[in-house]
């Protein structure tokens, strides 16, 4: 069940047609349900590329490793800046690790 959506937070991007996750998903997997909340139509087909997680302006999507492959529950949360990205990785033992770097522009 790779992308896990916080239905409380999801506001379908207030979009007329497609939310940002729906627009961005390279596999055409994200879509909106009748309540205009995003969901992944085929969790088995997700590549875990995390494009939707990065795109979501409400921070409502999390990627989870399928249980068949990894234990419950580890989190990897990206936070996108204008030219930076930070990652917060929390492993199953609660160990937190953080990464931050520039993802656009010249490196000094």
């Amino acid at each position, binding site marked *: *069940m*790779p992308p896990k959506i916080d239905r409380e937070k999801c506001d379908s991007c207030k979009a007329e047609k*497609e939310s940002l996750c729906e*627009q*961005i*998903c*390279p*596999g*055409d*997997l994200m*879509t*909106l*349900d*009748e309540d205009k909340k995003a969901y992944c*139509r*085929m*969790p*088995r*087909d*997700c*590549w*875990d*590329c*995390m*494009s939707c997680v990065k*795109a979501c302006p409400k921070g409502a999507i999390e*990627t*989870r*490793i*399928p*249980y*068949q*492959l*990894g*234990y*419950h*529950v*580890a*989190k*990897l949360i*990206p936070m996108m800046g204008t030219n930076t*990205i930070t*990652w917060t*990785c*929390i*492993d*199953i*033992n609660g*160990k937190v*690790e953080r*990464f931050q*770097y*520039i*993802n*656009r*522009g*010249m*490196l000094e």
Partner: protein
Amino acid sequence: MAEKIPKSLNEIQTEVIETDLLIIGGGNAGCFAAYEAKTKNPSLRVTIMEKAHISRSGATAAGMDAINTYIRTDKGETPEKLVKWSRAQVGGGPIREDLALSNAELLNETVELLEEWGLPIVKDEDGHYKLRGRWDISIQGEQLKPIMAEKAMEVGAQVFNRVVATNLLMDGNRCVGAMGFGVRDGKFYVFHSKATIVSTGGACGIYKSPVTDYSGAHHQTWMCPFNVGTGYAIGIRGAAEMTSMEQRWIAIRTKDFCGPVDTISVAFGCMITNAKGERVMEVRYKDVGGDKAARFYRLNAPMTEWLEGRGPTYVDTTILSSEEAKDLREDLLNERPSFVLFLASRGHDITKEPVEIYGSDPYIVGGHTGSGYWVDMKRMTTVLGLFAAGETAGGNPNKFVGGCAVEGRLSARGAVDYIEKTTLPPLDTKQVEKEKERAFAPFMRGPEFDGVNPMEMEERMQRLMDEYAGGIHQFYRMNEERLDHALKNIKMLQDQTKYLYAKDLHSLMSAHEVSDRLDVAEVLVHHLKYRKETRWPGWQTRMDYPEVDPNLDCFIESVRDPKTGEIKIFTRPFEQLIPGDRTKA
């Protein structure tokens, strides 16, 4: 949300777009092709047909941590040396050295272009790009795809997102565009163009992945699972000549997640070990180069360890300091962020425990190996007006991100020249109507149809290929009889595509994906059958012909007869341009 299923074909709107240059697939090569065509001739109408959304589509959707080919001239490297290295990586070829050289010459300029567009590239103290292997440079490429996409749009390419290509639009033996359908709007699209570049990426999902679990983790492949080989399939159906399809790309990947290993082994020097703690490559493969051996050796070695009872196999990350381990994961975050999540979900501290490795499922990816369209120096295929770039263009392995980008540019140059000399013939509406009917057939059968859903057929095909055409579960081994069995069943499956049904546009796309994969698989098996030798153990292991046959030191080619569907196999000779030992870098 569920779409309304049209009752008849007449309800489906047909959109005809007339353009000068059509680019099928707005990935790395596609974006660069658009950029090059527009900078060469700004008045040209350039249209990109993209199955997903151009900002995050294809193999670089998640990002990229390195550009694997950059020529540090200050260290005495030259394009020739790069070609030599590339040749050695595929065991001495055959390889199209002419293509490889022209590619290598434009490589540095293209990488620098990327930096100018805003890609952060790591530099050393002297201000040069910092090497992490002989040719690899590190990038912070999380935004690689959006950067390229923005440039393509900035130069004025018109992008059609969410349009799936189903076939080429032909005018005799000339390609005059392509047709497809909108996976969001349900329209039928006809792109009528003077020239067409196909850059859809490679084919993933022809074989069953070792990480497959049908319920929740079907797409845990290393290659982007949304690249299904449509670019090859439309060419095969359009009677284009394919080369070297038997040179499958299989790489050693992290076990259970198909994460990248080169980042760990090449960039951080973590070597392959087995269950006994032996440095596998140094102990058993010294003669073919040890840890620097060609890629197929580095794949085959650990898998052989498993077979021979010395598995599991690892890359030894315990040599890393905690800072290095953090840097490593930062690189991984740029390419495959979920792999870092995977490690966290195992509670895996890589400095304490090594990372387990295993082979991946086989992919047909011409940016990595030599499979794909036979192209001339202008990157035109054997079909007039059809150009190929990136993973779809064959004969020139080890292109990777940089090389595919270059090829995008070269194909655009070829196409621009071609466009100047040509005019657009009138649209063949009969062909359009026929293709429209074919494209929407699974949809028109409706959700209640008593038939086969695309997912079932995909799983059947993947199991078949895995077991009979040398998949991971058979340790990539194959023999003539098994290949015959595979071929027979592929034919059956191809025939059964008439039972495919789609309940929505998404599954209509899946239906086309499985048909495309079948067409690629068929050609692939023919190629595998023809190479009655074992030239690249692992990539292509014939149990019935375990030795190299010097007579087969040539390219194996195929063309499918568009009328009978029969596949003709023939060879082309290898031409060595750069002298020296072909197996040495």
